[in-house]
């Protein structure tokens, strides 16, 4: 008897849980509540980290001057691009 009640309960709860959103108002749009810029900010973080690591490797003397300059410029260029988009 109890098992019938519990079984019934589980089925009802699950059904309501799943179906409930279908009775919301139509035209619901799914958008990231976090801003779209999150991914860009994350990319910016990765770039900053890379610049830091590059500087460290340069300090340790692992990189030639011209390679260092070129790589650093490329990284900085990408950061600048991201910053202009973010500030727009």
């Amino acid at each position, binding site marked *: 008897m109890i098992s019938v009640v*519990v079984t019934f309960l589980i*089925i009802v709860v699950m059904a309501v849980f799943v179906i409930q959103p279908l009775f919301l108002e139509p035209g619901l749009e799914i958008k990231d509540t976090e801003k779209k810029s999150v991914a860009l900010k994350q990319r910016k973080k990765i770039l900053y980290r*890379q610049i830091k690591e590059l500087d460290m*490797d340069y300090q340790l003397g692992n990189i030639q001057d011209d390679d260092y300059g070129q790589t650093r410029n490329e990284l900085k260029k990408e950061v600048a691009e991201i910053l202009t988009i973010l500030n727009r």
Partner: protein
Amino acid sequence: MTPVIGGLAINLALGLAFVSIILHFFYLRNGDGRLFLSGQRAALAVSLLSILATLILAQLLITSNFDVDYVAHYTSLETPFIYKITALWAGQSGSLLFWLFTLSVYAVITILQNQRSQHKIMPWVMIVMTTVQLFFLILINYVSNPFIPTEADFVVANGLGLNPLLQNITMAFHPPMLYLGYVGFTIPFSFSIAAMAERDMNALWMRTVRQWLLFVWLMLSIGIILGGWWAYQELGWGGYWAWDPVENASFMPWLTGTALLHSIIIQEKKDMLKVWNMALIIITFTLCIFGTFLTRSGVMSSVHSFTASSLGPIFLGFVFLILVVSFLLLFNRKSFLQSEKRIESFTSRESGFLFNNVVFIVMCFAVFWGTIFPVISEAVRGTKITVGAPFFNQVNIPIGLVLLLLTGVGPLLVWRRTSNQSFIRNFTTPIVMGLVSALVLYIFNIRGYVLISFSLSAFVLTTIGFEFFRGIRSRMTSQKENPIIAFWRLIRKNRSRYGGYIVHIGIVLMFVGFTGHSFDSEKEFGLKKGDSEHLSGYSFTLYNVREEERPNHYAYIADMIVADAFGKSIVKLHPEKRIYFHRNPNPERRQPHSELDIYSTIKQDIYSIFNSIDLENEVAYLKIMINPLVNWVWYGGYLFVLGTLVALWPPRKEKS
């Protein structure tokens, strides 16, 4: 009552899995947000019901409800509490349910983590995850159901009990860790498929995939190491790795996963190798499913596998399906994934990583080849050729040594191009160190792979040591810090780099331990009370044999004194011969089991096994092994875990 609800839960979960997949697909077609919400909730419900089913099975095991066939087969009234819980993954249907349980926990976390973000790819992520859940739900519902009742025409007074081999505390951790690893690869796989399907692979995606990869890889590594530790402590053949098909099954995704862990860094930093990484993640996930298939289908005979069942073809079909669908998608998205950037030089870190990848993949292939060779040879030539550990060692030792070499070389390479001066400066001392150790070893009459392995270890340790040294020195001059603070901050500010180095040190220690294996010695003998035997300069004297009755077994205990060449006693060893189920009136049902005793030091392990006892003549038959450097493997394992944790530790919130 509860078995009925367990059965209902997995039934309902199966239905909802279908519902969830369909809802998500409709959402992708018409963009109605209500469908998305409903689909996500359905996916959540599938996971919650699966978790509920697992909890119910655990409860049935704990309360020894022998009305359920699974409970009666894998536990008995005498089974200690903790092993009643571990019985959850001791049998086939239980372990399939546990797979599903683990995946469900991961699915719940994924849904909750991404409630506010990554909505573009989330429908696909959940479609892939739910499809994998669906596969296991079908198996659990229709092929191997853990809630099937015992045949009802008699009452089961007591269950069959859990195999004594599995009554070891490691068994409480080794399988769950492996599952966390195996199953966890579903997450990066789902995100990759989703990113390809939506043609959207941003930095946020990268963060999710990298963090999960590292976590899941750590779990898999811990699982593998614990498995070796268990085999060493419990199985009594004196080793921790036997190239058993099931061990290989966990090792293969580890190899491809490790390759991926390296090459994904190139993708993060240079936006290159995307096609390669996607292929790697597909292969790794497929190997995880394939590994479950090897363990659960009984195709390969092994300590781990259960008896043959109908699971085989279904699993193979699923593996095939994953491969075909994923690679078709990958092929279709080739142009989206391709990058214009190229690797510029052989002496760049990019190329170092690439070679590391190639070596990992060929090693995986070698293991795969050896694992399935019996099946292939039977199909092609009609004779079954079994492949033993010597084959795997022969093939993999040279490949492993190349990897060891790369462990040292890779970190010294910088992105893009390593300058010649830095090349010479960074490598001179390590190479000299390597050569000096080679010379010393040669003088001590050590040759071959052992010599190469030890000198490479010296080389790699020196390169890593130098990296730390130069990093600390640079901080000391530029930041005016004392050495300890410099060391601490160096690691804290570059966690993934220095965490990686710590892992590498762990790997080197493990290689030293593996190499020690070639100095192993062993001897089997019978001793009467008071007699002694000798092995490798040690003497072993049997001074007593005791008998003792314990709650779930009867034990014969051999008391031995171990003495060194000068007669000085070092330690007493007490290996046991146990009889489990000794109260069972049917002698056939009693189960002998050897409990080892090991004296473990940094130099070597003295490993003793009580084989059998001749009660009439009062002779105890013992086996002694001297295994040098085994402890280094475990120490290496600790460092390995520590290093990964350093890399994994979440960074402090950076100031914007």
